[in-house]
């Protein structure tokens, strides 16, 4: 595959399907914390806490730039061959708290977070969008993030997309679940397209969210971290950062606890916190750092989402093909995106909103069920607090869905019903308590209903904003360079710095910001010569709709 020769990077079917070209480092530099029972000290130039979308790119770029880098990761390292295509078995092992993180509020919202080397990128759907331009403009206007324009971020986006081989799902791999939605959307004249994803050699195994067993999904554990190892970085897996070592307002290192019981002391002049949007603010709070603005652990947006099922008279087998392969952006300017949400039977059963014989009958029709998601760019805001009795790692997430977001859900679900009917569905199962299954093209019961937040069954996959970036220390936790205001040598690189809801899946935004941070720490100019992608997703977002909080 020609990545750089003519300055254009292919993003079509061949790039998507070609499974060759995996990067293998000469040495896997992963140290297993389960085996560390005694204390030890290492000295590096930078310590990255967390190995997900925010941490791994920083580690790779810093290591390749000549720094000695240590990456601390609370989760385990997983070989691809350990992924067994069984959601029920993988969920307790790859997800934090066995996938049982749930927000407190109305309604309770399941918030799955990855916990492994590679972070949530190991278990996400692999969907890739750049930060929408209007959102960047909102950040400039509201938070003084002048240097984060589309043009300024372009080289970083290109670099991330090249390393992850971001390319477009070909129709043949999109699955029949996407096909029926595409068919319905086209009949209604609604805008949509096949998604772009970070894959190399995808065959549509259908279990992206439970560890890709083909090694096709290019999560950061098999892309960025191996390149970091090749440049000398070491990942300390099963090792939890406990606290910072500070001298006044200057970072001197990190004290961590390995799962085997030993203490790991990392001496370094700079620390990059990448614990994720839920845990980074709690880590900072434990150190008594980052709270001056009053915004730490607040301003949480999560992109709440729900799934809507539809029964067809044709075979769907939603577990065949890419689970999230198509999107409809007809309402994107209102903060509503429709994206695929398919999965194997156990995943389907878990969220089937029925009980007793009705549950059984729904599951017996599983092969003819389609499942698609409604994702809302939320104006609601939540916060994170430490969970009493849960030690250092416990978090409580408080979040109430506001009326505007509730209305967005109703509108999005109505549109998805229209799409299903247009595609030939004979019934639609709603994720709304008190409403019956819809039949025969009649969305009347839904349209007439007064839907309340507490009636909705929701999940959320994109927590953002709890240590938001901004030029004004009175309104932001980190500065535009992602340094914690008022602290020397401490940076944040994860979803927590993203100051508003995005309206699109955030991994590319987080990785581009992480890459930019690394180049800044190296004192290097933006990367030159990165190939332009042949094509890239252009969702129809023409204005930022998200609230920005206090």
């Amino acid at each position, binding site marked *: 595959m020609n990545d750089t020769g003519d300055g254009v990077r292919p993003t079509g079917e061949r790039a998507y399907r070609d499974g060759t070209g*995996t990067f293998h480092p000469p040495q896997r530099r992963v140290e297993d914390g389960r085996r560390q029972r005694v204390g030890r000290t290492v000295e590096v130039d930078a310590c990255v806490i967390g190995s997900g979308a925010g941490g791994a790119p920083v580690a790779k770029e810093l290591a390749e730039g000549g720094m000695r880098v240590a990456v601390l990761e609370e989760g385990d390292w997983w070989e691809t*061959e350990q992924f067994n295509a069984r959601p029920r*078995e993988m969920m307790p092992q790859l997800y934090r708290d066995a996938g049982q993180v749930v927000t407190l509020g109305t309604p309770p919202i399941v918030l799955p977070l990855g916990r492994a080397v590679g972070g949530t990128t190991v278990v996400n759907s692999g969907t890739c969008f750049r930060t929408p331009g209007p959102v960047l403009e909102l950040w400039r206007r509201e938070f003084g993030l002048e240097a984060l324009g589309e043009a300024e971020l372009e080289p970083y986006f290109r670099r991330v997309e090249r390393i992850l081989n971001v390319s477009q799902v070909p129709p043949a791999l999109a699955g029949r679940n996407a096909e029926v939605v595409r068919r319905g959307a086209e009949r209604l004249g609604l805008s949509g397209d096949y998604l772009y994803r970070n894959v190399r050699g995808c*065959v549509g195994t259908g279990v992206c969210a439970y560890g890709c067993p083909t090694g096709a999904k290019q999560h950061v554990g098999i892309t960025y971290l191996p390149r970091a190892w090749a440049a000398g970085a070491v990942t300390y897996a099963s090792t939890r950062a406990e606290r910072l070592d500070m001298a006044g307002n200057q970072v001197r290192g990190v004290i961590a606890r390995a799962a085997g019981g030993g203490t790991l002391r990392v001496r370094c002049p700079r620390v990059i916190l990448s614990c994720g949007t839920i845990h980074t603010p709690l880590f900072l709070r434990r150190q008594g750092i980052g709270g001056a603005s009053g915004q730490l652990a607040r301003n949480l947006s999560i992109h709440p989402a729900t799934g809507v099922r539809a029964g067809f008279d044709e075979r769907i087998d939603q577990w065949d093909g890419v689970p999230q392969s198509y999107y409809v952006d007809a309402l994107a300017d209102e903060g509503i995106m429709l994206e695929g949400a398919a999965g194997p039977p156990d995943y389907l059963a878990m969220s089937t909103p029925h009980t*007793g014989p009705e549950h059984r009958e729904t599951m017996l029709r599983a092969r003819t069920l389609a499942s698609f998601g409604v994702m809302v760019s939320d104006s609601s805001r939540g916060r994170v607090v430490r969970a009493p009795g849960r030690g250092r790692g416990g978090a409580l997430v408080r979040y109430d869905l506001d009326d505007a977001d509730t209305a967005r859900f109703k509108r999005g679900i109505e549109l998805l019903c229209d799409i299903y009917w247009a595609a030939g569905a004979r019934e639609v199962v709603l994720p709304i308590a008190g409403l019956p299954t819809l039949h025969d093209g009649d969305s009347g019961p839904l349209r007439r209903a007064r839907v309340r937040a507490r009636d909705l069954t929701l999940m959320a996959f994109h927590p953002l904003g709890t240590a938001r970036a901004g030029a004004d220390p009175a309104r932001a936790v980190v500065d535009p360079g992602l340094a914690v205001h008022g602290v020397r040598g401490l940076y944040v690189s994860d979803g927590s710095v993203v100051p508003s809801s995005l309206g699109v899946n955030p991994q590319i935004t987080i990785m581009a910001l992480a890459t930019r941070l690394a180049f800044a720490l190296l004192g290097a100019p933006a990367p030159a010569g990165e190939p332009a992608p042949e094509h890239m997703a252009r969702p129809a977002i023409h204005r930022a709709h998200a609230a920005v909080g206090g």
Partner: protein
Amino acid sequence: MSARPSATATAGPSARVPGLGRREAAIFLSFADTVLAPRPPLPAVADTDALAAFARFLGASPGPNRIALRAGLRALDAGPRALGFRRGLCALAPERRLAYVQRLQAGPLAGPVKALVGLAAVSYYGDDRVMGLLGYDADARLARARELREREGRW
């Protein structure tokens, strides 16, 4: 490094499951049978590895969740008496059990009951035989994945 997920095993109502007492196991099976209502061609809950899977979920849960889930099971069993059903969940006839659970789902305990229904559903429908009946073959996917990894030098 992390161990491969342990092999699943069928656990009948009298089986001992690590992390779950006999009484709790019986309540889970009764509850799962009520909310999932499997009938042929689907096997009975007790004839699958759902109970062992549920116990693994409990084992991987954070302490407060684990305590709440176990207490929730006990409360499910005791609850019918408080609501005038005169017997515990396990001793009720199937249609009475369903009526009881649906009453809970309509009240202030709807959230916790929904969580337990979800766990019961994923525990049961994740059984290889049940997934196979619905058309999903995990092993076939793994075989293809292994072949691709070996042929193309993937991770």
